[in-house]
């Protein structure tokens, strides 16, 4: 054992740490809202400015998807949501975040509407309460209106298969799968 071997030892430890780090997902930031009831709100929907809905009108288990017509990643995840809603009959509520109503309506008209309804959050106040910091985000809520999971960024098929569907099945969303 010569006196320089410690360098190699330090390096091995560093590599072990980096290897462990590779298996982690640093973008997974736990939301403080997970496990808590969804923050209350009351707002009009995108399609009907007169129709006011509140947190009581989101029966779970369901997904709440935060979207906006200006958000490129939402465009990207849209087919995934359409498939979820149409093929698997998962209830999805939209939250239209910091958007203009006419843009939002046109966007849904063009691309298809996977949402039961979309809450209109033009000034982002509801988003603030919900801790939204990037669009899109997707919340999973259970039958009691408690947030069980939050996904940040666009959903892809893997997220749906491996996380959302098993979780929804656990929560008793019989129609999911």
């Amino acid at each position, binding site marked *: 054992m*010569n*006196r*320089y*071997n410690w*360098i*190699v030892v330090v*390096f*091995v430890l*560093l*590599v072990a*740490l*980096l*290897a*462990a*780090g*590779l*298996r*982690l997902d*640093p*973008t997974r*930031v*736990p939301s403080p809202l997970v496990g808590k009831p969804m923050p209350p709100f009351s707002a009009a929907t995108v399609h009907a400015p007169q129709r006011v809905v509140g947190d009581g009108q989101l029966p779970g288990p369901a997904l709440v998807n935060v979207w906006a017509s*200006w*958000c*490129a990643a939402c465009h990207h995840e849209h087919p995934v949501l359409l498939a979820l809603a149409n093929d698997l009959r998962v209830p999805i509520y939209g939250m239209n975040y910091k958007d203009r109503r006419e843009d939002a309506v046109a966007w849904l008209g063009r691309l298809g509407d996977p949402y039961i309804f979309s809450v209109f959050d033009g*000034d982002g106040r509801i988003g603030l309460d919900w801790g939204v910091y990037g669009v899109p985000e997707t919340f999973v809520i259970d039958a009691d209106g408690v947030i069980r999971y939050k996904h940040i960024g666009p959903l892809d098929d893997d997220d749906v298969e491996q996380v959302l569907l098993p979780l929804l099945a656990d929560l008793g969303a019989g129609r999911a799968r």
Partner: protein
Amino acid sequence: MIVELGHFALVLAFVVAAVQGTLPLAGAHYGVAPLYRLALPAARLQFLLLVLSYAALSAAFLQDDFSVRYIAQHSSAALPTYYKLAAVWGAHEGSLLLWILILGAWTFAVTLFNRGLTEVFLARVLAVMGLVAAGFMLFTLATSNPFERLFPAAAAGRDLNPLLQDPGLTIHPPMLYMGYVGFSVAFAFAVSALLDGRLDGRWARWSRPWVLAAWVFLTIGITLGSWWAYHELGWGGWWFWDPVENASFMPWLVGTALLHSLAVTEKRNAFKGWTVLLAILAFSLSLLGTFLVRSGVLVSVHAFASDPERGVFILLFLVVAVGGSLALYAWRAPRIRSTGVFDFLSRENLLLINNVILLVTMFTILIGTLYPLALDALGLDKISVGAPYFSAVFVPLMLLAALAAGVGPAVQWKRSSPHPLLRRLRAPLAVALVAALVLAAVFGDGVSPGVFIGAAAGSWVLLTTALNLGRRLRRDGPRGGLRSLPLSFYGMSTAHLGLALFIFGVTFSSAYSEEKMVHLQDGQSVELAGYKFVFEGVADREGPNYMSKEGRVGVFRGGEPVAVLHPERRTYRVQSDAMTEAAVDASPLRDLYVAMGEEVEGGRREVRVYYKPLIRWIWLGAMLMALGGVLSASDARYRVARRAVRADSARADGSARAGGAA
């Protein structure tokens, strides 16, 4: 077609690099001349192939070939030509190709400027660089091929990330890579010297200009990145202790330590083992930085799309390259004997102190960067380590470094007696303390301890550097004037002056910056630090691939107009991201900085105004450091010395061949 040619050229370059990395090493070991003579032509051919490959990708970008996945994802037809060329390195795959091209360029440079190196030694250096290149090319071809086709082809491109559409940022990555990759030369020299078994002053003299060149590029690259962040992120900050910034700063710190210890190895034949270790470490940290940025283990604004497969590959590469060289070091280092002897109070020891401070700084940053990862890996917690930690450890360490930078050049090699030294340093110390007191009192209301200490450190470095320069000129000057001193002495003085300016800039801009965030209607104004900012409204402007709301802000001081600023809010068409373009009125003593945000209710706009004293000095100081590096690298000593060693290297060559690898 041109895309396939580029791909093919890259595959060929890989094959050539693999040959360059293996056969010459074997040839050097067994003394087979035809084998080790392969290294030089292979290195040149490899570079030629890389140029072809890179040119092919650039041409495909210019032709808007959206059947190439990488181009479809990171360019668009409307992108200005200049940014199309810059988009080549706008994301992971292409920037990796640029990394490899630059490595090829450094290797090519070694094939041109190698006077004085023995043929065997040169072959080893080129082979080590070839191995590094082959590893990176394999990585590119296997996991991150920029030439991959997309079927069916995309109709339009998704455009370059708007954040990257800025002149400062387009040259930031190439400069940074020149620095990162440049340390590979010193690394290859160190590994070759370890393989060779002969480490002496000549090795240090050969390495030093290469290290200086790489260090200069890295300094410029980091400075550009900082300047870009200041300008483009819209928050007036210039350094964020982001993991990726740290990843570039750690090799810089080690590179700086290496520069100083190389001076000792070259002139005094001491610290040899230590210097070799630093050379290995500087490049290893560059590789670690590459891993951190490209594997997705850390969250950062800079991180590329993460892909575990890529992470595994780079980690394996890191294990082979860094682990291999460290193991070689641990095996060979006990045989390295330093012959230089020196007293406690000597320039050697002062430079050792400098090295220890820089290395400790590097380790504290490394710990701060990896700590969240370690906690997460152990399943303990998710945290992020931010500016408070880094500032708390970095600032005191830098003050120590500043103190040493003032004393070091005044101390003699080998031994210094304390009394003349104290006499010499007494005056600058006293003047620095008084000046700091005055500066702190003039700038702020009352003297704040932080400003006093910072101003004292800055003044101390400034005064000692100037006095040292004056003394040397008086001693050597009368006959030759300014030209009697070697360029490297001017280089050191310039770099230390840069350090002084940097300390002033950091101290005053962080202590006395003022900012206000207001909502303004057209015609309303806000006062800050004696300046009046009048918001004169917003106009629509159309750029090539974006729409812009351009504000007009008139700045007045005591009724006199100072400047008209045009902060922008740009919306890029394809990615529909809103980008803030801050407007800055720069002057040596202060920046006035205006950033414009979203429109809020009632037709008012969010406007942020900043007053930042001496902030230019931060970048000016860094640029002076880089200039100091350029001056040192141009020192005649390296050119003359190379010619001088040529004769005895011919003899050494013969003995190396006879004895094989020691």
